[in-house]
C-alpha cells in the first residue's frame, strides 16, 4: 500500500459533503477530494482505484466535472476481479455516454467479458452494453449478444434480450439476425425471459416488416394462449401484485398483440376473445388492474374493428373518466384522444365531463382535457363549447391562460360560422386575456374586421366600450381598438351602421381622440402600440378637423422622444398636419380592404404545420409568401398599392426623405456655419432617392407630380442636380422638395439643438490674453447653454495661478466647472479650457450677457483683468 496516500473513506467524504452549510464550502471539499483523487490517479495507485471511482460517482451525481476519472473505469474493467469489474462498469455507465470516444476503448474488454466463464461478469458486460453502447459497438458485439440469447442461465438470456433491443435501436439493419433466437424466447416459462423476449419481439416488429409478418404467422396464437394461461393462472406469490399475477407481463403481451393485430384482420380476430376476457375480468380497484385495462383498451382501439369490443373499451374509458383518482382520469383523457379517430361519436357523449376536466385544479389534466376539447369541436358544437371556454378564461390560472387563449383563438378562427360571431368572440378573448393573445391572432382579427364592411361601425363601437372597461394589462385589445378608432372613428362618433342588437352610444370626437392618446400615454404600452396610436391620431386629425389643433399639440409632444420611431413619426405627422392640409385627406384615407387570402397564405408560410385549410390557401397563392413583412406591418405604415401615400415597401419614401433630412441637416450645418444647406440636403435626398428600386422612385415622382411637374423633367433634374449646377429644372424641383420639408427647417435652427449651430466668439481680448467661447446645447433643455471657454496667453511670459471668474445678471444661472490647468504657457503655446453652464430663465426674451474677471501671476506679480461679454449669439 502507498503509505503517502491518506485519502478519506467514501463514507467520510459523503459525511463531509453533507456537513457543508454553503455551496462554497461544498465546492471546497469537492475540490480537495478531486485533487487527492487526481494525485492518486497520477501515481497509478491500484489499491484505491476502486474507492476513488466510487467517490467520483458521488461527485458526478452532485453535478461536478469528473472526466478525469473516465480512464480509471477502463482500467477497473480490464482488471481480473469481480469487485473491480462491478464498480468499473457502474462508473462507465454513469460517467460516460455513448458519444464519448473513450467508450470505443472498452469494446475489447466487453468482448472478453461477454465470453467470460463467470456468468455474473457476463451479466455486468451485457448490462453496460445495453445501457450505453454506441452504434459502432453494437455492430461489433452483436454476434456475442446473439449467442448469449441461448445461454444456459435465464438471467443472462433476459439481459441479452434487452441488450438486443438497444442494438436494434442503434443499428436497425441487424434486426433480422435476432428474429429466430427471439422467437424461441417466447416459448420460455421464466417470467424475466418472457417479459424481455416479448419486448424484443415487439421492437423487432417495429423495425422490420419481415419480422412482423413472421411473428404474426408463427406467434399470434401462441401468444394468445400464453396470455390466457397467465390470466387464468392461480395465485403466484412471487409475481403477484394486488391479486394479479405479473401485471408487467400482462401489459407487455397486450402491447405485443397490439402490434400483431394492427392492420391484420385474421390476427385481430384471433385475439378477440382473450381481449374481451381481460377487459371484463380484470379488477379495476387497484392501480395494477387499471394499468392492464388501460393497455387492453389501447390494444382494442388499435387492432382491426370488432364492434362489440370497441363498445366495451369506450365503456371502460367512461368509467375511468368518472373515477375519483386523478391518475385514472388523466389516462382516460389520454386514451380518448386516440379513440376520437376511431369513434368520434362515442367520445362526444362524454363532452360535458371532458369540459369539466378543463377546469380541473390539476395542470396535467387540464392540458389533456383542453387538447381533447380542441379535437371535439366541430361546426355544430362550436358555439356552446367556445362560450364555456371563454367563460372559464375569466377564472383560469395565469399560467394556463396562454394555452387556453391559443386554443380558443384557433377554434374560433377555424369553425366560426359568421363574421359577427368571430369578431364578438375575439373581442371577448382580447378583453379577458389580452396579453396572452399572440400577434398573429390580432393581426388576423384586423384583417377580418377590415373585410366585414357592414360591421365596421358595430366593431368600433363595441371596441370602444371594451376599451372603456380595459385595464393596463390588455395591450392587444388596446391595439385593435386604436386601429379601429383610427380607421372608423367617424362611424364611432356618428353611430353609423347601427345593428338592431346594439344600443346607441354617445361618443364625442374628442372621446375618440382620447382613445388614441391613451394608447400613447399608458405606461405599459410598448412601442408598437404607441406607434399605432400616433397613426390613429393622424387619421383622426383628418376625420375630425375640429380636433386637428389638439391632435397636433399632442403629436408635437413626442418630437423630443428618445425613441427614434416615435420622434420620427411625431415630426413627420406634425409636418403633414401643419403644412399639408391638402395632401392630408388623401394620405390618411381609410385602408383599402385587406386581402384575407393573402394574409392566410402568408401566415401559412410563416407557421409550419398549421391547419390544413390554410395550407390549401397557400397553395392557391403562388406568391403569397414572397413578401416577408406581415400585411399588418404594411398597414401600420400606411402603405397600400393604389393610394399614392408614403409606402413602407422599399423604406417609405417620405419617411426616408424626412428621416434623411433629419440626420443630414445638422451634419451639413456643422461643417458649414452659414446654413445654406438646402441644395446639399436635396442632393443627399436625391442621391438616396435614386438608389432604392424603381418602385420608390415611382412613388417619389407621384408625390412630386402633385406640384405639376412632369416626371421626366424631374428625372432630368435629378441627373443635372448631381453636378451641382443651378439650372432651372433643378431649382424647380428643389423648391417643392424643400417645401415638403418646410415644417422642419426652422425647427432645425431653433430647436434641434446642435452645438455647432452657434458660431464661436472671441469673448475677451487684451494685449496678452484671448478668451474664446464655443457654444452647445443639451438635448431637451433649450434654455441651458454649455460654454467651452478657451484661454490663450499671447505674451512671452507664462502665467501661473490662473483664475477665471464670471458673473451674470439675475435672470441667468451660472455654473463654473474647474479649469483644465492653472498655468498658462506663454506665446500661445498652450491653452487652458474651462466649461461653463448658463441657464437662461427668460429664454427667448432676453439674451446672454456676462462679466469676466481673470487673475494670474506673471513673474510673481499679481495681475487682474476684467471685461464684459455682450457679443453672445442671439437666441441663447
Amino acid at each position, binding site marked *: 500500500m502507498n503509505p503517502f496516500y491518506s485519502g478519506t473513506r467514501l*463514507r467520510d467524504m*459523503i459525511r463531509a459533503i453533507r456537513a457543508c452549510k454553503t455551496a462554497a464550502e461544498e465546492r471546497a471539499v469537492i475540490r480537495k477530494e478531486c485533487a487527492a483523487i487526481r494525485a492518486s490517479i497520477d501515481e497509478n495507485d491500484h489499491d484505491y482505484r476502486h474507492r476513488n471511482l*466510487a467517490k467520483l*460517482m*458521488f461527485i458526478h*451525481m452532485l*453535478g461536478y466535472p469528473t472526466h478525469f476519472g473516465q480512464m480509471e473505469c477502463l482500467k477497473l474493467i480490464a482488471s481480473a*476481479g*469481480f*469487485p473491480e469489474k*462491478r*464498480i468499473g462498469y*457502474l462508473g462507465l*455507465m454513469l460517467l460516460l*455516454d455513448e*458519444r464519448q470516444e473513450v467508450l470505443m476503448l472498452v469494446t475489447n474488454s466487453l468482448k472478453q467479458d461477454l465470453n467470460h466463464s463467470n456468468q*455474473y461478469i457476463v*451479466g455486468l458486460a*451485457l*448490462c453496460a452494453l*445495453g*445501457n450505453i453502447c454506441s452504434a459502432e459497438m453494437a455492430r461489433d458485439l452483436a454476434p456475442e449478444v446473439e449467442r448469449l440469447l441461448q445461454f444456459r442461465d435465464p*438471467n443472462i438470456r*433476459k*439481459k441479452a434480450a*434487452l*441488450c438486443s*433491443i*438497444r442494438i436494434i435501436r442503434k443499428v436497425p439493419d441487424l434486426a433480422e439476425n435476432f428474429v429466430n433466437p427471439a422467437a424461441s424466447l417466447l416459448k420460455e416459462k421464466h*417470467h*424475466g425471459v418472457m*417479459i*424481455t423476449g416479448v*419486448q424484443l419481439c415487439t421492437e423487432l416488429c417495429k423495425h422490420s416488416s419481415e419480422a412482423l409478418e413472421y411473428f404474426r404467422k408463427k406467434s399470434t396464437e401462441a401468444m394468445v394462449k400464453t396470455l390466457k394461461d397467465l390470466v387464468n393462472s392461480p395465485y403466484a406469490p*412471487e*409475481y403477484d*401484485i394486488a391479486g394479479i399475477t405479473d*401485471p*408487467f*407481463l400482462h*401489459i*407487455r403481451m397486450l*402491447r405485443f398483440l397490439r402490434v400483431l393485430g394492427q392492420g391484420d384482420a385474421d390476427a385481430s380476430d384471433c385475439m378477440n376473445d382473450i381481449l374481451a376476457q381481460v377487459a371484463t375480468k380484470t379488477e379495476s380497484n387497484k*392501480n*395494477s388492474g387499471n*394499468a392492464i385495462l*388501460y*393497455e387492453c383498451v*389501447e390494444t382494442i382501439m388499435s387492432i382491426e374493428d370488432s364492434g362489440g369490443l370497441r363498445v366495451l373499451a369506450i365503456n371502460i374509458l367512461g368509467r375511468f373518466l368518472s373515477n375519483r383518482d*386523478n*391518475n385514472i382520469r*388523466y*389516462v382516460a383523457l*389520454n386514451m380518448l384522444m386516440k379513440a376520437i379517430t376511431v369513434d368520434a361519436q362515442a367520445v362526444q357523449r362524454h363532452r360535458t365531463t371532458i369540459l369539466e376536466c378543463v377546469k380541473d*385544479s*390539476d*395542470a*396535467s*389534466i387540464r*392540458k389533456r382535457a383542453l387538447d381533447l376539447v380542441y379535437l371535439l369541436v366541430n361546426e355544430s358544437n362550436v358555439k356552446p363549447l367556445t362560450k364555456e371556454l371563454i367563460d372559464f378564461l375569466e377564472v383560469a390560472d395565469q399560467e394556463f391562460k396562454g394555452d387556453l387563449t391559443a386554443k380558443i383563438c384557433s377554434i374560433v378562427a377555424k369553425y366560426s360560422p359568421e363574421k359577427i360571431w368571430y369578431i364578438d368572440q375575439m373581442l371577448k378573448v382580447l378583453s379577458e386575456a389580452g396579453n396572452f393573445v399572440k400577434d398573429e391572432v390580432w393581426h388576423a382579427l384586423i384583417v377580418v374586421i377590415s373585410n366585414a364592411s357592414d360591421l365596421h361601425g358595430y366593431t368600433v363601437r363595441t371596441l370602444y366600450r371594451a376599451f372603456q372597461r380595459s385595464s393596463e394589462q390588455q395591450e392587444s385589445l388596446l391595439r385593435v381598438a386604436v386601429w379601429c378608432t383610427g380607421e372608423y372613428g367617424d362611424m364611432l362618433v356618428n353611430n353609423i351602421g347601427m345593428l338592431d342588437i346594439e344600443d346607441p352610444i354617445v361618443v364625442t370626437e374628442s372621446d375618440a381622440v382620447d382613445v388614441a392618446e391613451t394608447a400613447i400615454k399608458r405606461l405599459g404600452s410598448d412601442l408598437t402600440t404607441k406607434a399605432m396610436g400616433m397613426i390613429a391620431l393622424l387619421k383622426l386629425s383628418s376625420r375630425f378637423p375640429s380636433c386637428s389643433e389638439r391632435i397636433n399639440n399632442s403629436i408635437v409632444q413626442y418630437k423630443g422622444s428618445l425613441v427614434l420611431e416615435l420622434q420620427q413619426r411625431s415630426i413627420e405627422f406634425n409636418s403633414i398636419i401643419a403644412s399639408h392640409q391638402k395632401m392630408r385627406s388623401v394620405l390618411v384615407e381609410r385602408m383599402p380592404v385587406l386581402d384575407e387570402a393573402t394574409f392566410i397564405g402568408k401566415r401559412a408560410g410563416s407557421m409550419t404545420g398549421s391547419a390544413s385549410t390554410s395550407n390549401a390557401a397557400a397553395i392557391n397563392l403562388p406568391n403569397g409568401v414572397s413578401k416577408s413583412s406581415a400585411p399588418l406591418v404594411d398597414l401600420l405604415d400606411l402603405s397600400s398599392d393604389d393610394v399614392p401615400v408614403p409606402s413602407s415597401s422599399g423604406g417609405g419614401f417620405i419617411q426616408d426623405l424626412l428621416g434623411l433630412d433629419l440626420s443630414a441637416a445638422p451634419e451639413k450645418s456643422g461643417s458649414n456655419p452659414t446654413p445654406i444647406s438646402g441644395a446639399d440636403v436635396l442632393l443627399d435626398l436625391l442621391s438616396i432617392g435614386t438608389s432604392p428600386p424603381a418602385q420608390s422612385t415611382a412613388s417619389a415622382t407621384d408625390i412630386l407630380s402633385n406640384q405639376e411637374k412632369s416626371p421626366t423633367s424631374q428625372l432630368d433634374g435629378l441627373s443635372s442636380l448631381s453636378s451641382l449646377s443651378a439650372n432651372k429644372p433643378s431649382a424647380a424641383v428643389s423648391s417643392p422638395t424643400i417645401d415638403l420639408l418646410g415644417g422642419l427647417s426652422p425647427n432645425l435652427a431653433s430647436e434641434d439643438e446642435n452645438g455647432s449651430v452657434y458660431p464661436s466668439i472671441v469673448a475677451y481680448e487684451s494685449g496678452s490674453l484671448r478668451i474664446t467661447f464655443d457654444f452647445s446645447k443639451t438635448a431637451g433643455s433649450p434654455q441651458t447653454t454649455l460654454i467651452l471657454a478657451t484661454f490663450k496667453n499671447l505674451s512671452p511670459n507664462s502665467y501661473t495661478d490662473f483664475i477665471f471668474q464670471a458673473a451674470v445678471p439675475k435672470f441667468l444661472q451660472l455654473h463654473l466647472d474647474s479649469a483644465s490647468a492653472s498655468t498658462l504657457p506663454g506665446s500661445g503655446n498652450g491653452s487652458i479650457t474651462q466649461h461653463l453652464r448658463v441657464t437662461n430663465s427668460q429664454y427667448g426674451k432676453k439674451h446672454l450677457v456676462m462679466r469676466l474677471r481673470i487673475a494670474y501671476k506673471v513673474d510673481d506679480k499679481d495681475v487682474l483683468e476684467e471685461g464684459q461679454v455682450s457679443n453672445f449669439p442671439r437666441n441663447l
Partner: protein
Amino acid sequence: MIHFVLLISRQGKVRLTKWYSPYTQKERSKVIRELSGMILNRGPKLCNFVEWRGLKAVYKRYASLYFCMCIDQDDNELEVLECIHHFVEILDRYFGSVCELDLIFNFHKAYYILDELLIAGELQESSKKTVARLIAAQDSLVETAKEQASSISNIIAQATK
C-alpha cells in the same frame, strides 16, 4: 421506453440519476433543474404525471424522496407507476425499510439494484425475489474476493515484517 430515472429529495437534491438516452452533462443538469422544479411544486392530490418537452415524467413520492421516470408519450403511465413501486419494494427489502440516508451512503448499491431491474430503459425482471437473489449472489462474490485479498495482504505483511 424509459429515458431516464431520477431520485430527488424534497429539497431538490439529486440522489440517483440513470440515463438510458444520451444527454450531455449540460442537458442533464438542465433536465434535473426543470423537472424538479415542476414536480416538487405539485400538490399532493394531483395526478402523478407531468408532460414535459414531448415526454412524460411519471413520479411518485415516498417519504422525503421523489422517484421519477421519464417515458415516451404513448407509454403506459400506470404501469410505470407500478414499476417505480416495484423498485421501491426491492430497495426496501434489500436495506430493510429503506430511508434516504441508506440511498445516500450506499448509492452504488441502489444503482446495482436498478441495473438488475432495468436495461436499455426496459423492464428486465418482474420478480422481487429474483432480483434480491441476484444482488445477494454478486454481493457475496465481492465479499469473498475481499476476504481473499485481505488474507493475501496479511500474508504479505507477515512475510515482510
